[in-house]
């Protein structure tokens, strides 16, 4: 059991606006006429398309193979015909295109054959592969592949289930916990088993008493150490690091994983998807999301991945003064640049925004260093310092003041009396730093290549010289065998240059020696002695002569001269 809760620094209490949609049960959204399924469904990984236009697919049939370590499979959300494989805009602030499979539903919604996965008998690797092949990613919004998160964990003591849902307006996790508590906890206990955790803690903000009650009731059916804990409603209590801090007191620094501290955290929706994937063999092809804001009929819907947002908006009927549509919550979400984009696995909420509900920001005033932002910052940064540094393009200093610990929760911008869009400054600074690092790494690569080229040329040169020296030594050895190498300098083998000279001399001598042998046969010892004396004189003359092979070019281009 949880003995006590911990606080995290800062945080804000914006109006929750949960009542608008919290009492609307989850309904299946009607089938759209076309589903645009992006192949990019997890962070930094795009699946490889394995279907072609014209092909008929069943519901849950795989249409994209996982690629790379962070890849997960992508599936057809319903049965129908693949009509296109091409680029379509993604639900992203940039509105960039991504590869999508467009499916025209046949209306039958016929499932592919499904097999429950017996994770008790399977190895851990097989279970993780099953999750990957079912396309399970974090449904809290980050869409981080669950099998990777599980695979990294060892020595995990506590598995935390994140049902905090701290962002205003969003109620999809609330409804999911109220309606499918048993499934969520079944998924959580699978996760706990896969990760080898001892205890399971579910953290839910105390503004969701029905969800807490439902989860507590369902927790009775789960073996082992399970606790459903109400945490104070304080944004961003649902931030992974903040929730871990509240429930365990452990602080996970930037760049570290919970696994290193014996804690791992999953969203309740993810646990639910894990349960469907393992107990029913169903891939992740739909999710629950909230339609709310300036609408006539707010609600929570089970939506197929790939459903266009515009199709969903028809369900909730935005009021006429709606001027923007937000994806995600108002604190961390973004305004959709266009509405024909599809729902992806990270889409938890669509908010119709009006100037009344979300007034345009007031004009920016100068920072007066009042420190409100520092008091609100859950990462315990000094946001105004980061603002000054980012504004002055002093990115090094911003990094020194831990810019990258910023989780972009928006608390600082929320409280700023000068209405400075602080988070925008940090996003700008981070992207500038990333761009510079990329530039630097490109330059590093070019330099590495250049240096390697120099090194290679040098190495080849040395190899050539070594080969020559070896050859010389060999020749000298031969001479020594013949007992005619006595004139060679004693320190010849210490200096490659001298070795070369010696080798050349030896070669010349050998030639000279060879020559008379061919022409003179059966000489008398006297004649031989005479010839030897002449030869010796010749060699002596050759040693003094500067025109001997001493000035060989390779030795002049010594390694020092090029480095």
């Amino acid at each position: 059991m949880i003995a006590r809760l911990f606080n995290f620094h800062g945080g804000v209490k914006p109006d929750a606006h949960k009542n608008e949609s919290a009492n609307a049960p989850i309904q299946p959204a009607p089938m759209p006429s076309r589903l645009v399924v992006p192949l990019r469904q997890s962070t930094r990984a795009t699946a490889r398309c394995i279907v072609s236009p014209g092909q008929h697919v069943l519901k849950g049939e795989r249409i994209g193979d996982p690629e790379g370590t962070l890849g997960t499979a992508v599936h057809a959300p319903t049965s129908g015909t693949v009509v296109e494989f091409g680029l379509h805009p993604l639900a992203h602030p940039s509105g960039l295109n991504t590869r999508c499979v467009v499916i025209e539903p046949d209306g039958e919604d016929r499932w592919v054959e499904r097999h429950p996965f017996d994770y008790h008998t399977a190895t851990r690797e097989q279970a993780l592969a099953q999750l990957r092949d079912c396309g399970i990613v974090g449904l809290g919004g980050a869409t981080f592949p669950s099998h990777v998160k599980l695979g990294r964990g060892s020595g995990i003591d506590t598995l935390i289930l994140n049902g905090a849902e701290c962002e205003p307006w969003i109620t999809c996790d609330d409804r999911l916990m109220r309606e499918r508590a048993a499934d969520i906890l079944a998924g959580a206990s699978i996760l706990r088993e896969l990760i080898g955790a001892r205890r399971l803690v579910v953290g839910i903000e105390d503004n969701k008493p029905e969800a807490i009650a439902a989860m507590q009731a369902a927790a009775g059916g789960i073996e082992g150490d399970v606790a459903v804990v109400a945490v104070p409603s304080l944004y961003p209590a649902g931030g992974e690091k903040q929730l871990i801090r509240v429930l365990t007191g452990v602080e996970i620094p930037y760049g570290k994983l919970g696994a290193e501290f014996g804690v791992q955290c999953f969203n309740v929706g993810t646990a639910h998807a894990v349960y469907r994937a393992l107990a029913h063999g169903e891939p992740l092809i739909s999710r629950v999301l909230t339609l709310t804001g300036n609408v006539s009929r707010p609600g929570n819907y089970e939506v197929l991945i790939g459903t266009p947002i515009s199709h969903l908006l028809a369900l909730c009927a935005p009021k006429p003064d709606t001027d923007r549509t937000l994806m995600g919550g108002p604190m961390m979400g973004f305004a959709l640049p266009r509405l024909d984009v599809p729902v992806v696995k990270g889409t938890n909420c669509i908010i119709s925004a009006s100037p009344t509900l979300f007034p345009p920001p007031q004009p920016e005033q100068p920072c007066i260093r009042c420190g409100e932002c520092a008091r609100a910052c859950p990462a315990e940064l000094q946001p105004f310092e980061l603002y000054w540094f980012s504004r002055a393009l002093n990115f090094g200093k911003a990094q020194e003041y831990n810019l990258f610990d910023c989780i972009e929760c928006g608390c600082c911008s929320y409280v700023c009396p000068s209405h400075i869009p602080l988070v925008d400054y940090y996003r700008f600074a981070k992207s500038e730093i990333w761009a510079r690092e990329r530039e630097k790494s490109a330059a590093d690569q070019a330099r590495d290549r250049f240096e390697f080229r120099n090194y290679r040329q040098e190495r080849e040169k040395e190899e050539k010289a070594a080969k020559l020296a070896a050859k010389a030594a060999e020749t000298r050895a031969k001479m020594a065998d013949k007992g005619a190498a006595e004139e060679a300098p004693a320190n010849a083998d210490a200096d490659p240059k001298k070795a070369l000279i010696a080798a050349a001399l030896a070669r010349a001598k050998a030639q000279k020696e060879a020559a008379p042998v061919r022409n003179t046969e059966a000489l008398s010892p006297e004649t031989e002695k005479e010839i030897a004396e002449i030869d010796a004189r010749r060699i002596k003359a050759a040693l003094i002569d500067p025109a001997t092979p001493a000035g060989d070019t390779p030795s002049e281009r010594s390694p020092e001269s090029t480095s």
Partner: protein
Amino acid sequence: MIHSPYIRKPASVQRVMLNVLLALTPGIAAYVWQIGAGILVNLAIASVTAVAAEVLMLSLRRRPVMLAATDLSAIVTAWLIALAFPSIVPWWLTVFAVLVAIVAVKHLYGGLGQNPFNPAMAAYCTMIVAYPSLMSQWPAAGTVSFDTQLQLILGGLREIDAVTGATALDALRTGLRGDANVGTLLQTAPFGLFGGRGWEWIAGGYLLGGLFLLLTRTITWHLPTGFLAGLALTSGVLWLFHPDQFASPMFHLASGGAMLAAFFIVTDPVSGATTPRGKLIFAAGIGLIAYLIRAFGAYPEGIAFAVLLMNICVPLIDMKTQPAVFGHRGGRQS
């Protein structure tokens, strides 16, 4: 394109400044009650000058005038100058001081949020150096009629000795130099229950306003606590050893500008330290230096100089007192 967050807390610079002005009103009320309504005239002169100077400088700097001129920050500076100065200084001295604060100390350094020095205190220091006699003529409590005050402010009448009395700090200082001891001095006219007679009520008014600022979270406890503790501790140490030579911490807290400084002057966010530990160091430093000037310096009151001296140290203090970031505590991180 507007980015998240799409919701904002209803807060503004105007609101912050308005809170400060509201918090000053109990002190001003006590001022009017104890000393006279002359302070209101000075507040008005200072406010008008400040807004005019603000508008002038903003247009010279080609900045949007309306938003910045209505942020009330110039009014706060003006009020602090009027309250820190003797309330019977001639009008031109107030105007001059406000111009120094707004034009030189604030806008020449880049306007709101950019000034390294507290504008009101820089103006105070300039004036006390330039016009030492005018700056040390304080009206004694309940002795100067509003008419006389008005005439003193607007010019003409300058028969100073007839209407002014030494302030408590000044009397103490002069008295101690003349071989009197603290105990007998405190029985004389300028002294009240804790500090200067009449003035201690004003200090109480500032304290009340300061509590309002704390409750509305306009300021944090660090700065007033640091300053008052710095002043009380240093005066307390000397008082314990030589109670005849040095006044009690209580006297020092209730006299001069201590309360005004604790809640309204050292709390200036722009020119002060910002980290929790830094705030304590910054404010305690002001308390310490202010006391040293009071006890051993050439001026009866030393807060203004202390503030400027500590303003200089702010970048260093902030740099050296950066709090640990989430997850980087306890040496777990290299």
